[in-house]
């Protein structure tokens, strides 16, 4: 049995929702350490910003989705605060790979007639309350049943859990730490042109390699930042989005929490250097009607430098095993052929469990990335496309973007967005 024959997708199913839904508004709080705000307050702040961005009022939004790991606020409280009467809501368990999946759910519930417009948020004090790396409160909880098979071995944090995949990729394909460090180099370059980013300093390969080892193969600078923030995305039909303030980012295709075999413990089914994108791409590209070669900007989840590389590879942006070459070739940097995470992503901008990478691509599609370029008389930024430090981060003529969300090696989500063709 080959890997491909284990889980075959019917990639020929009807694509009638392609191009029918859109992201009409995006918003976020600041990215900070020590927010001194409740997650309820952070959520309200981000959703209000997304509403203002779209021009939609409380009466226009009637659906809400959120995701968390029991470290956030439930949708009904936030909706109540903002005077939103809900026809639909759901609070979903999960972190990375949730946002693309929840956008798919939002499309589904709108299509089913359950509501008309859905605000999706993630609010977290990922530094000052529940640290995603697992230190503090998370390392002290009782370990029950199935968790014993990993947590009892000090195999708990994301970096620890993913390390066997990363190391095996180096073993299978000769990938080097220096190649992968280029992901941090690229994302830190992007963050230096993002006034919102938590870390704005540009880093070199040597900076990454000389930072202390956390869990092999991860140095400190291979790991993302932990921050306090909330983010929000508003999904509605393309027709309604066209009546909003901003140009719609049109949703072409979504994949939600696509899994490798043996999702109870994915390492049972190899090759373990292959990740869920290997399966997800069979839904993503046919449903979008485009391929990786058509994409202008990527948003490959950077919980770690390695996660960005592995996904770009398994979604087909390069040949399997060539991920190290791909990310160190300059392609993924601003000014390169297909920049990745132009906001600086989780490595530099802030940690939001994936949502800031989608927000960034929405702004790229609009052509209105919030860098330091001057604002012209028409109220729009005059993008220079000069990517030197402190400058522009708008990519020229963005038509198509791909977000590649990551929960773990065995589970991923993805989405293709397009500029409105109208």
């Amino acid at each position, binding site marked *: 049995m080959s890997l491909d024959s284990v889980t075959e997708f019917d990639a020929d199913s009807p694509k009638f929702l392609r191009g029918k839904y859109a992201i009409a508004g995006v918003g976020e709080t600041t990215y900070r350490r020590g927010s001194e705000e409740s997650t309820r307050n952070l959520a309200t702040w981000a959703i209000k910003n997304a509403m203002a961005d779209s021009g939609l009022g409380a009466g226009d939004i009637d659906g809400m989705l959120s995701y968390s790991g029991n470290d956030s606020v439930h949708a009904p409280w936030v909706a109540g605060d903002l005077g939103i009467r809900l026809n639909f809501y759901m609070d979903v368990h999960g972190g990375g790979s949730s946002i693309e999946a929840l956008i798919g759910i939002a499309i589904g519930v709108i299509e089913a007639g359950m509501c008309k417009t859905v605000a999706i948020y993630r609010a977290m004090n990922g530094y000052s309350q529940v640290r995603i790396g697992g230190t503090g409160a998370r390392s002290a909880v009782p370990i029950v049943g*199935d968790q014993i098979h990993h947590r009892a071995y000090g195999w708990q944090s994301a970096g620890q*859990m993913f390390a066997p995949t990363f190391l095996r990729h180096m073993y299978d394909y000769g990938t080097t730490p220096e190649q992968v460090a280029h992901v941090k180099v690229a994302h830190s370059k992007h963050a230096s042109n993002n006034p919102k980013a938590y870390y704005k300093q540009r880093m070199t390969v040597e900076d990454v390699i000389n930072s202390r080892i956390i869990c092999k193969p991860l140095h400190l600078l291979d790991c993302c930042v932990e921050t306090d923030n909330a983010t929000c995305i508003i999904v509605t039909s393309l027709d309604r989005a066209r009546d909003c303030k901003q140009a719609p980012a049109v949703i072409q295709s979504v994949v939600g929490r696509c899994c490798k075999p043996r999702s109870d413990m994915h390492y*049972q089914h190899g090759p373990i250097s292959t990740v869920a994108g290997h399966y997800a791409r069979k839904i993503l590209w046919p449903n979008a009607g485009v391929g990786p070669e058509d994409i202008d900007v990527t948003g490959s989840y950077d919980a770690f430098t390695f996660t960005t590389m592995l996904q770009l590879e398994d979604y087909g942006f390069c040949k399997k095993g060539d991920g190290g070459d791909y990310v160190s070739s300059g392609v993924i940097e601003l000014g390169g052929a297909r920049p990745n995470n132009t906001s600086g992503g989780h490595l530099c901008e802030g940690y939001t469990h994936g949502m800031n990478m989608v927000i960034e691509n929405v702004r790229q599609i609009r052509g209105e990335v919030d860098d330091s370029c001057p604002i012209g008389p028409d109220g729009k930024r005059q993008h220079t496309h000069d990517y030197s430090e402190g400058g522009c981060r708008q990519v020229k003529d963005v038509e198509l973007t791909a977000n590649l969300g990551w929960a773990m090696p065995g589970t991923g989500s993805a989405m293709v967005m397009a500029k409105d063709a109208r």
Partner: protein
Amino acid sequence: MPIVGDYMGMALTIEDVDKENRAFFDYCAKGEFRLQKGKASGLLRYPPTTACPWTTDRDYDWVPVEGKGAVHSYAEVHHAIQPAFKGHTPYMMLLVDLDTQKGQPSEHEALRVAGNLVMADGSFAPPDVVRTVGIGTRVRMVFVDVTEGFALPHWTIDETAEQPAAPWRYPQE
């Protein structure tokens, strides 16, 4: 009554209704490594599950399995998260391909069993031993007691096995 054992500062808990894990760790406490073998498929599985992943069969027997294999991959932790592990860094979590059923039922499948690299007496391997272990190292299973009726499987270097000349390790020490 659930079994609760304090291990490395963690409250490890197995509920009464969790029959699969209860049996697995109880055999470990007796010094036996047993896995579920599906009656319909005849295939072993790890970790414990409630049905056979290849046939959906819910019937199985607990059969003794040789606790020997080779390191498939690993995590080598230098910055521990759980407080009690901080005194043991760097420590290794090994993912070991058992010799039994390797490459079955498909090429890339194996019983990949987790455990820390320990010495033969169950104590954490010191840094000079950690530096000798990598992908390909031959290991054998040892058990470390948690509490009555509950022990954890771990891995130690198999002194009797022929070892690879240079197991693959991350290039930076």
